[in-house]
């Protein structure tokens, strides 16, 4: 093995760090989209209209069995055919947003279901409006259990971003691939990408654990 530090710092790092920024952008943008779509999916699945909840449920099941790569390629090749021309970056955001919407919906539904039924009944008995019921009774209790799940989903989304290098979104792995194809050196770029992923996902996992603990403490204080 020959590891060249000068190559690592002079060539690899300056080109991978902008990729890191793209990775983070894609992660957060697609995650925001997932939350948005997931909310609608969840509402549809909880709906009293049977057809709607059935369709939402089947859609969630369907998306859970589909690899992200298939979603990415599908959008990448399909959108131009229906005359929608997006940059690979936005296609990637769209694909990951749609892909992660199903698990996001399931996590949010789990949080709502964890709110005891008595809370709904109490709000009803006290003649609270729908808005007040949600704002002051249900949501404050539902958000707590949802945070760790959504946090993990965010980290999963982060780790899925390298797949976008298949459609040439200029993220970290794509930058590394370009370096390897120019210099024929695989060791440094790929190892640097791996280590960056490791540091960031372990770091964010730690951060989420801290937030979780903080929220739990507040919850117990409120009690």
């Amino acid at each position, binding site marked *: *093995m*020959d590891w060249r530090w000068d190559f690592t710092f002079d060539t690899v790092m300056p080109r991978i760090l902008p990729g890191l920024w793209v990775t983070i952008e894609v992660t957060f943008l697609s995650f925001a989209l997932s939350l948005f779509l997931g909310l609608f999916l969840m509402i549809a699945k909880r709906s009293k209209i049977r057809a709607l909840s059935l369709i939402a449920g089947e859609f969630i099941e*369907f998306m*859970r*069995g*589909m*690899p*992200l*790569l*298939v979603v990415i*390629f*599908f959008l990448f*090749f*399909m959108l131009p*055919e229906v005359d929608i021309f997006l940059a690979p970056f936005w296609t990637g955001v769209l694909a990951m947003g749609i892909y992660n919407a199903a698990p996001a919906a399931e996590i949010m539904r789990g949080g709502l279901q964890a709110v005891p039924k008595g809370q709904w009944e109490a709000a009803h008995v006290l003649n609270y409006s729908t808005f007040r019921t949600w704002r002051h009774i249900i949501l404050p209790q539902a958000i707590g259990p949802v945070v760790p799940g959504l946090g993990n989903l965010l980290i999963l989304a982060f*780790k*899925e*971003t*390298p*797949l976008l*290098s298949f459609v040439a979104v200029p993220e970290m*792995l794509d930058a*590394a691939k370009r370096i*390897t194809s120019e210099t024929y050196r*695989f*060791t440094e770029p*790929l*190892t640097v*990408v*791996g280590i960056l*992923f*490791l540091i960031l*996902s*372990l770091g964010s*996992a730690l951060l989420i654990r801290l937030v979780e603990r903080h929220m739990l403490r507040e919850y117990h204080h409120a009690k």
Partner: protein
Amino acid sequence: MTRSPIAILVPLAFMAGLYFAVFSPVSQFLPALLKGLTVTVSVAVPSILFTYVISIAAGLGRLSTVLPLRWLSAVYIEVFRGVSLLVILFWLYFVLPEFGLTLSAYTAAFLGISLNAGAYGAEIVRGAVQAVPRGQFEACVTLNLTLWHKYGRIILPQALVIAVPAMTNMTIELLKGTALVSAVTLVDLTAAGVRQNQLTYQTVEIFSALALVYFCLAQVIRVSGTQLEQVFNRHLGAQ
């Protein structure tokens, strides 16, 4: 959720038949997709089996009282959970030769997928073992059971019952992970689909077929998971 497998598979088979009857150009790309499917399955099945072995080994290692063993499992789990599968695959296939270990594309795919999924599985097994009531562990100590008896006969059978639903989900994730093996030059189902798309431009048909096949494979895993759960509950479950 209890859904009978036939209730899902029969309409699906019907839909698939209808679909092939309606879109006749399917015959252009179908053989290539089927070839890809065999690659996907031949990567997925051994990986699934090996993943279960790793999961149990690393999951128990994480709880071991032997310190080096615990650290080793912890490092393994954190590293392979922290790095994305695609990066692991690239690393195994392109960087390991630099260290003097050249893997074939198939071996790299098999190892990468099972090591990555095994790290997730290990956490599931650890959670499941910890969910076994404490009294069971204490009873093992009281009865002076050997380590083998304690885990082989008492703890693991109960833990595996708890772990089955999460393991089923993990197996589906693994199946979805096999879509990435084209990174190490294997032509699996997804890669075959992309190639055929470039040759025939039947984007909608090809990707619908891909989605349908992956959905069916995932259903097979889900249904066998539910069946396994029932068998375990009948034979091993305490309640």
